[in-house]
């Protein structure tokens, strides 16, 4: 329904798309910017220039062909395992939460957490690299022991939206969780 402009913790703009399917079911899609052509070009140029420099001194053509292979393989791995296009959080009251992230290559990975295992959805703070960030996470409980948190599942791990975006998702999620309890 609503689509707003937010930024991630590094200042790149991302978009949050909230869809209300019914009173009990909402979907949040965080879309990161597409793989920029310039970045790809710069990386490729660097590797090839380096390879050419090595070739210039060694005069071994294997260097050039391996550079080409390396670039291709690197790009494949990047779009298949690293670069996430959008991340989706689908929350369905009384049923559970589905998290999916779709990679630039089109590969999708999906996990589902059923309601009985879900303790709460909260915003937490953590030390990440050389900074301290807010992130949204799901607290998982063991249905046998409802009071203890057994593990934590971070949400929007690759897009890392900033606090204002997280707060919006958090509020909507809490609305649904409040009804199912």
């Amino acid at each position, binding site marked *: 329904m609503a689509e707003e402009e937010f930024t991630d*913790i*590094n200042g790149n703009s991302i978009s949050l798309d909230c869809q209300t399917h019914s009173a009990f079911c909402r979907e949040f899609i965080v879309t990161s910017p597409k793989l920029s052509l310039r970045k790809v070009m710069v990386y490729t140029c660097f590797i090839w220039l380096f390879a050419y420099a090595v070739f210039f001194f060694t005069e071994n053509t294997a260097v050039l062909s391996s550079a080409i292979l390396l670039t291709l393989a690197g790009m494949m791995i990047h779009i298949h395992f690293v670069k996430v296009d959008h991340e989706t959080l689908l929350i369905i009251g009384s049923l559970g939460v589905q998290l999916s992230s779709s990679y630039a290559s089109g590969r999708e990975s999906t996990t589902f957490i059923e309601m009985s295992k879900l303790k709460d959805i909260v915003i937490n703070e953590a*030390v990440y690299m*050389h*900074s*301290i*960030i*807010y992130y949204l996470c799901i607290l998982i409980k063991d249905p046998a022991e409802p009071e203890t948190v057994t593990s934590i599942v971070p949400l929007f791990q690759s897009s890392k939206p900033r606090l204002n975006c997280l707060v919006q998702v958090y509020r909507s999620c809490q609305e649904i969780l409040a009804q199912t309890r």
Partner: protein
Amino acid sequence: MGNRRRGHTHAPKTPPSLDTHSPNTLRHSDHEQGVKHRICMVSDFFYPNMGGVESHIYQLSQCLIEKGHKVVIATHAYGDRRGIRYLTNGLKVYYLPLQVMYNQSTATTCFHSLPLLRCVFVRERITIVHAHSSFSAMAHDALFHAKTMGLNTVFTDHSLFGFADLSSVLTNKLLTVSLCDTNHIVCVSYTSKENTVLRAALDPEIVSVIPNAVDPTDFTPDPSRRDNSKITIVVISRLVYRKGIDLLSGIIPELCGKHPDLCFLIGGEGPKRIILEEVREKYQLHDRVRLLGALDHKDVRDVLVQGHVFLNTSLTEAFCMAIVEGASCGLHVVSTRVGGIPEVLPDELVTLCEPSVQSLCDGLEAVIARIRTGKVASPATIHRKVRTLYTWRNVAERTEKVYNRVCRESVLPLSARLHRLSSHCGTVAGSIFSFVAVINFLFLLFLQWLRPDHLIDVAIDASGPHSRLGQHVSSWDDRTPLHDAALQGRLLPLRRLLSQGYNVGMATLDGITPLHEACVGGHFTCAKLLLEHGADANAVSFDEATPLFSACCSGNPALVSLILMYSSAHHPAHLLSSPLHEAAKRGHTACVELLLSQGVNVDMEVPSIGTPLYCACESKSTDCVQSLLISGADAQCGRGLDTPLHVAARVGGAKEVELLLEHGADQSSRNSEGKKPLELTTDQTIKHLLQTAEDGVCVYTVTGNPWERKLRPRCEHLQRRVRGGGLPRARSSGCNEHTTTKLLLTM
């Protein structure tokens, strides 16, 4: 405080004007009462590590929070304990993942901690960085970075140093560099101040003395725990050279020889334990000298109350906390006259001796003689005297004055800092550290380019004036006079404030506007005035309340109709409640009728609280139920499978049950637990009503369309068949008349 200090200061080595209570501070103190600081305490030493510095930081922070300041603590990660933790009263602790080098102190490279500390300072909007302990490398790093970032700095020194050996010379040089451009330094005693001023070559003007404190409620006397057939001397200290354990090993055999009823109780652990064990072995004193080993802080009091005399043999001490704890437990204190100890306790509570075996023995014997003749004060008297001497509130008050003073000072720009460094710290060290300072500044610029300040999210406060921990208290802080006038319905002040140019749409952090307040208070004239001045009638607060919602809560029909005139939305897009539900719940019939006349959907079901009719039945407001039913509310629609009839029966509203039955409620429908309304009540009147209805003496006064009226009896017949005949349940939830009708038509 000045008087009290003079009371037990033996040698007033500094003129009074150098204290924190200089006339300058007093003059400004009035208008600075309200200034709230955002303080970051930095030290390598914090819980779970235990000790004097740790508890000092914790207690001081708690008292500052109590005074309304915002305090966060930054320390390094302790094993598994890393990240961000909250302690009592929203005290936030950053356990930063920095590498520990030696003795719980981090490595100091001057640079590697900058990114994380900058992030903490920026996101918490810190104004004052307060570093603790000269042993803590992280504290010095933080001072260095804070000065680079242009923040005010305060440093508390907790220990005394020598001047002679190489390690002290090096530490002193580092301290000189670190403190030469720090705004203010706090020492725990006058001796410590003297020491620090000399070591770091400081201007005494910027050094204040604020002693430590004990929590007197933790250390209370208990004379019943003493064994009065003997005289017990308690020693609690780390068993190291600095604490004078060699003296102790000389005292024990001498006194034990003279007094056969003397016992020693020694708590603590350390490398000098072996000496004490040797003495014990040599003189066969196993039954009279007990070595307790390392003690937890909580067990200290239990040991202290068993003794008559507390002995401290320290060779150097900045401010001896142990003797205050001993005195607080009602023990008479015998101590060496070293460091800051003479300042700590008044003369009648402590016997001071020279740090030699002979002098200490003489002192102890004098005290023992006094105990034998009964000429000593009772433990309760001693405790009463000590209790008021050193409290953390007092420490916090004095620290606050330091902060107020520091805030007025400007932070040196880079060029002035470089000049200060080279003029204060000698040529070699000065130029080295000037270079380091420049590099640090460039590194900061690089970090600011890499991740600008505006990209770092401002942290949500857990303490201080904008704390979100106690929401109810804090949401009142950012209210304007307009909010207050509107809530209390004071029309004239409101008009005056508006004419003074107060913005009518001024919202608090929670998004509450003055119009919300006027509606909560139910003040028609105030709301009218605000609306005429252009207040937004559709403003939504953080709790998703609109003015209409608040007006329905207060139940003034004139106000509701006024708001309806200005606002467009009847029901904001949220799912927890609605104006109609609130009015029905609170029995404001006039409001309900008004809303219904505006075309609000009467059967609107909110998942968590049901339909308005259900709410009205739940709160037993008969008038509301009646008007809702007359306006065409479906008598079967409640919350999920729970019908209004169920809830009316459960709460015992006989009149509501009667009304519902008159309007065609089905007394045989079952709720989610499979129960009929009849099974939910104990009230005889309701039972009778429901039973008569079951026998079929039900009068239908349906006001719906004729088609529905015709169908309804058949519908119900069908429902019974469906339920009884094992067919899939047709009524899944709420009002499924249409589904049933469809079913009927297809059959």
